[in-house]
């Protein structure tokens, strides 16, 4: 089996030399080029020859970043594996890669504690199309949170009106107690109902349902 042909892009010259030397010691890898920035590496023949590219995320500030460079390399060679490493947190970086292009992408945090074999493993896996992007990317948490966010969509004014309404006070009483006009309280009540019960129909008993919903939310928070 032939060795994996690797492109290496890192703008820090000291690190590029050390890690470059280290990677070229591996029998499994063939380092076919190491570069300081995206302009140097965008050479069609070389990119077509490569199996995988190891790219620092933070490259030249005025040029492409690592992910943009990875996408550019993919557009030249659709089989090339892309490994992004960075001192920035990589957990959300995959979101920057178009969904259709994500297979064969890997991400890891820069670390001086990694041994040569750790680099070789991740580079070889990625070159064979098995990127780690699914494990790295942070899980999306939803639904239960959306529920409790309803409370926060009410303004503090609406919350104070709803809590008085939950005590059985009429719009008239609320207006007197909070020193607001009756029509304003009515308006705020119906706005609150719309937030609390987004899918209600006009025929429902809005007031009771909204008060129940509000009390339920208060228990949650």
């Amino acid at each position, binding site marked *: 089996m032939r060795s994996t042909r690797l492109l290496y892009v890192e703008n820090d010259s000291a690190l590029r030399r050390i890690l470059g030397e280290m990677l070229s010691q591996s029998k499994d890898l063939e380092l076919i080029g190491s570069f300081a920035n995206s302009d140097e590496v965008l050479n069609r023949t070389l990119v077509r020859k490569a199996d995988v590219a190891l790219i620092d995320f933070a490259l030249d500030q005025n040029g492409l970043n690592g992910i943009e460079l990875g996408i550019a390399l993919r557009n030249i060679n659709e089989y090339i594996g892309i490994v992004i490493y960075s001192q920035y947190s990589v957990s959300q970086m995959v979101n920057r890669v178009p969904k259709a292009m994500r297979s064969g992408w890997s991400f890891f945090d820069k670390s*001086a504690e990694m041994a040569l074999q750790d680099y070789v493993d991740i580079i070889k896996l990625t070159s064979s199309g098995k990127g780690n992007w699914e494990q790295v990317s942070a899980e999306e948490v939803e639904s239960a949170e959306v529920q409790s966010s309803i409370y926060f969509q009410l303004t503090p*004014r609406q919350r104070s009106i709803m809590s008085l309404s939950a005590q059985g006070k009429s719009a008239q009483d609320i207006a007197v107690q909070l020193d607001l006009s009756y029509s304003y309280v009515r308006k705020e009540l119906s706005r609150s109902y719309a937030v609390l019960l987004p899918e209600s129909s006009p025929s429902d008993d809005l007031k009771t349902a909204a008060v129940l919903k509000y009390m339920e939310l208060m228990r949650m*928070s």
Partner: protein
Amino acid sequence: MKRFLGFFGPYPYNPYLIFLFFFAFFFSRFVNLVAETPAGPERWRAGGVIILIALIPGSFFALTAVLLQRYRFWSSSNLLFYVLEVTTAMLVLELYSPMVNPILEKMFDYHYVAPISLSINIFIATLILALCTLALMHKSERKIIERLENADNLVEQLKADREELVNLDEAIRRQTSTFLHDRVQSDLMVVGMKLKSIQGTASDEINKVIDRAIARLENTRSADLKNIIQALSPNFDAGGLKSSIESLIKQYESNMAVLIQIDEGSEQLDSLNLLGTYRIIEQGLLNAFVHGPAKNVFVSVTTDSIGKTEIVISDDGPGTDLDFVDSGVGTAVIDSWVGILNGKKTVDTVPGHGYRLQVVFPQ
């Protein structure tokens, strides 16, 4: 000389004063008619007609003043133009008086005799008198308007200064953060790797020392420095707005539950808008923590299809009375960013029912 001419004008017209002046002038000119008319309905009629006669020039000139103020296409600060305006008004006035006299003659057989007849000298004298009257009527008005303009300029200046300070602050933050990332963090990494590379050639004991040294360097580099770099100047390229905010809320984790919702459109904002959004949320969370602390905070950023962005930071903390909303550093930073983003800030809070900050800004 300049001060002397400055007394004559130009003045900003006050329609109410002008109305009152002409009304009083014409009413007093013909009020004798009322006294001369026998008591009864006839006298009431004479009074009504005179009020009408006085109302017409009063309303006309007040309206002209309003229209001039709003639609004048020549300079309002030029004395010559101002004098021409007043002269034109006087000429119009000279046309009005001859129209009134025949009416009064016909209706009440009242002959109004002007004390002096019209000539060019009289006209010029009257013009100077009119200019002086206008000057006396509007002097304080002009002063107030000048002061208000000065105050407005100062407020604008203050706002611009504050925004400039924020921009400078950001520039320094960015420089420091770039230095820490590109030099300090990178060098620590390189030193760590060099240590690692000599490990193979050393004894077990030295290897242990090297391992501990690397672990220590790595801890400084990937934890402490990383957090400082992020706090100084967040990198939105790396993980977008959402992950920057997520690392921001980590420091509050043990005190407040922060729920964030950031839509796709907001991730596409340009870097200045992203930074402003981040800074506003940063200060908003700090406020929720310091003035609360709130138990829960909800942060949402939404951008609609025309590029209007809305930031909402809402908490369930103790809230405060809107009349006593403080003006601390956090608020100043938020206001400066709202200015930089050309946005609008709304605060809603009721004691016992939390605090809600909303900022809306265009693309």
